[in-house]
């Protein structure tokens, strides 16, 4: 059980930041699933809505940044409070970038929806689902201070990297067989890459959670086979 601060207001300020981050996390998770749905269900209207939700995410990023800076300036936090705040400042950046990647996916989906479907989408939704779970678990780990869950997220990143490589390989065969598929293949290739980037952002968050809990920096220590990070 965590002790409270002498200043209740200080506790409230930190809780407010924690809740805002979770709210932002929930919104980007929705953006991931909606952008993928827009592709799989060929729903360009949903793609437009996903794109339109991005300014809200950007706004939240600025609000959370401002709150963190206020607490840093006024409370001079130390120890785990300091780690929490510096982490929050970084997490918002990752979440905001995830939002941007979802906009990219939605844009590619809109373009793909204008053309005949190249192939049934199986691995991409799987990858999106996996990636979305990583984002959710990274944030859960952050809220609960759960380093084991954070470590799992870091390890899961490998699976997404592998899927990305597999999808690229498959798309290459389409392009080699029929140059008429190149535009669509490249767009799908982009989407795979965007998802792989989202998983990297989730991994960043998880690594920072481990730092918050353990005070140990594990960034750039987990070997990865992905050569395109």
């Amino acid at each position, binding site marked *: 059980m965590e*002790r*409270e*601060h*002498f*200043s209740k207001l*200080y506790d409230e300020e930190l809780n407010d930041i924690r809740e805002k981050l979770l709210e932002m996390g929930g919104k980007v998770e929705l953006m991931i699933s909606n952008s993928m749905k827009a592709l799989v269900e060929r729903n360009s209207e949903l793609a437009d809505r996903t794109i339109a939700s991005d300014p809200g995410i950007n706004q939240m990023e600025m609000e959370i940044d401002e709150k963190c800076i206020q607490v840093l300036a006024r*409370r*001079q*936090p*130390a*120890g*785990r*409070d*300091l*780690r929490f705040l510096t982490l929050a400042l970084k997490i918002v950046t990752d979440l905001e970038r995830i939002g941007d990647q979802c906009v990219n996916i939605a844009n590619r989906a809109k373009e793909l929806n204008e053309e005949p479907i190249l192939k049934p989408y199986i691995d991409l939704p799987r990858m999106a689902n996996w990636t979305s779970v990583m984002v959710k678990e990274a944030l859960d780990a952050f809220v609960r201070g759960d380093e084991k869950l954070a470590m799992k997220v870091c390890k899961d990143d490998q699976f997404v990297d592998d899927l990305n490589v597999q999808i690229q390989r498959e798309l290459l065969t389409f392009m080699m067989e029929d140059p008429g598929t190149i535009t669509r293949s490249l767009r799908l290739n982009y989407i795979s890459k965007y998802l792989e980037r989202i998983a990297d952002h989730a991994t960043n968050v998880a690594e920072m959670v481990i730092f918050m809990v353990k*005070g*140990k920096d594990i960034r750039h220590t987990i070997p990865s086979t992905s050569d395109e990070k």
Partner: protein
Amino acid sequence: MKTKVKLEDLNVHFDKNHAVKGTTIDFGENSVTAIIGPSGCGKSTVLRSINRMHDLVPTAKVTGRILLDGINIYERTIDSVSIRRLVGMVFQKPNPFPAMSVYDNVIAGYKLNGRINKDEADELVESSLKRVALWDEVKDRLKANSMELSGGQQQRLCIARTIAVKPEVILMDEPASALDPLSTLKIEELIEGLKEKYTIVIVTHNMQQAARISDYTAFFYLGELIEFGETKKIFTTPDKKQTEDYITGRFG
């Protein structure tokens, strides 16, 4: 880190009150060590034991050893006055000698230890006041009464008086807590410069101050040393939960 002062199983009792319990700690040469902890944790008691100030308190009993360059300062053969010349002390409230001029204050301690001619005294006054960044402010009124200076200036004067006797270790007990923020920053900057020549141990209630100016931090609670380590670690990722709770404002 070369050890300048070593506390070995230091215990201090005041009658039945066990104020410092079995503390062992190394203070590195040319470094600033901050001692932090809530009121009554024994931090000032530890500090005072390093220049044998408890000798003057009849109820105080000090056991264990305090080694200055490897020599136990509590050896019977060692005179407390000679220890206090090597280990200077700066107190919470600026305490210049009220009946003396700025000039006489600086050389007061030195005069107690021996004779000094006018040229040497002039040079000592100037170099000491320059070292505490007070020279430019008082060089035209060296003969003025020290009480005419501001609180921050008086405190720097006291530090000048301390370093004029050429100590090796300087102990500071809340040296800036009676000063305004700007004077506090001047004292802090001064401490940063002084460590080039001296070993400094400072007791402070102001944790941000400890975080700003010290190289090492010792956290005491109820007379016990809970954690000692590099300041950059203590204030970001301390090992002990008690330390973390204290520095984050959760108890104290």
